[in-house]
């Protein structure tokens, strides 16, 4: 790579053509070597180079600036996002973009859905298969969720349920939680008592609506 290839045309012309990129350091090594070799031998081209450097420096330092900014772009993205979500019929390119945007929105929705499903599954996994997600809660739906200590015995659980007039609705879920039904009027006090019991890790009210 280091050896100097000869000029294919007039060396003066080629040197003058490549001069700008010699100044900015953008020539290939062999081009640079060739041009520099010619410059070393040619006074005219060297003078030309000095003038060109002056021009290059002036152009680089020209005060050209605009006062435009991100705000207009942000507004445009918002508009596009709205259009992408609500305009179904459009030319191919537009549709492709729309599909991408909707894909993004769907991905975001999917992420949110996954989170919701995780919660829902923990609570509802053991329910009967015909229990649709959108159906109205059954008359004896759960209204509290309880996690017992892993070493809690069944006798402890039965004792707690009986003492508090609570009924086991579902469970255990994958996270070993139980869904209980507690008389509404006593729920707060019962949950307080459960939390105070050594066999209970967690006891929280469960409102089906809040999960939707």
């Amino acid at each position, binding site marked *: 790579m280091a050896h100097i290839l000869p000029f294919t045309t007039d060396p003066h012309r080629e040197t*003058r*053509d*490549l001069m*700008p*990129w010699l*100044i*900015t*350091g*953008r*020539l290939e090594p062999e081009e640079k070597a060739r041009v520099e070799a010619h410059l070393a031998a040619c006074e005219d081209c060297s003078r030309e180079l*000095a*003038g*060109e*450097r*002056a*021009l*290059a*420096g*002036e*152009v*680089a*330092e*020209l*005060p*050209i*600036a*605009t006062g*435009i*900014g*991100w705000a*207009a*772009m*942000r507004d*445009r*993205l918002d508009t*596009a996002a709205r259009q992408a979500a609500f305009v179904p019929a459009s030319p191919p390119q537009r549709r492709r*973009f729309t599909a*991408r*945007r909707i894909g*993004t929105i769907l991905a975001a929705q999917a992420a949110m859905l996954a989170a919701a499903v995780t919660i829902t599954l923990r609570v509802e996994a053991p329910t009967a298969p015909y229990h649709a997600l959108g159906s109205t809660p059954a008359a004896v739906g759960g209204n509290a969720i309880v996690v017992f200590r892993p070493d809690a015995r069944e006798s402890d659980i039965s004792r707690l349920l009986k003492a508090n007039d609570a009924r086991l609705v579902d469970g255990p879920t994958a996270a070993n939680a139980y869904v209980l039904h507690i008389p509404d009027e006593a729920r707060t006090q019962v949950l307080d008592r459960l939390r105070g019991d050594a066999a209970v890790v967690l006891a929280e009210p469960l409102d089906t609506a809040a999960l939707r």
Partner: protein
Amino acid sequence: MSDGSVAHRQTVEIGNAVTLEDARLFAGVLAQERDAFEALYRLYHPRLARFLLNLLHRPQLVEEVLNDTVFVVWERSDTFRGASKLSTWIFAIAYRKAMKALRRLDEPVEDRDADMRPSGGDAPDAPFGRHRTQEVLLNALAKLSPDHRTVVDLTYFHEMGYREIAAIMDCPVDTVKTRMFHARRHLRRLMDGELADWL
């Protein structure tokens, strides 16, 4: 002009750093992350604004074309195949958009007032020194065709090689060299001895 070459070196170093940043941000843009896009916008904004203002000479058009350009980057990020540098791809979009905007204006692309401008003659209130040189140079640039102006700006301000410029302007490398040669000759003639004061 030893100062000039120092400035060039610094810009090149910054240029390399920017390329790594480019890759990181563009990954975010591909994933349609708006934060990454905003960062990329802010990174390219000064360079694109300068490039477009130099090319278009119409500030009100610069914002429109610049935003059109980066919007394509956002919208069509999946069409960038990495065959060129990201900056080359973005500048090529900007160049196409700018030329389209100029054609749409249906105005002569050359400076319409060229004949009415004094060529280098001093007005009574003409500024002196460096400021004056810059003003004369801006006037001289305005008299070039947009293509010639573009090659000069991409070479001396954006410090791009002729191959990269050819990719942006979608023309043969020899055309870039020829345009640059003619542009320089015009500029130096139009500068009318201004530069000689700096030698």
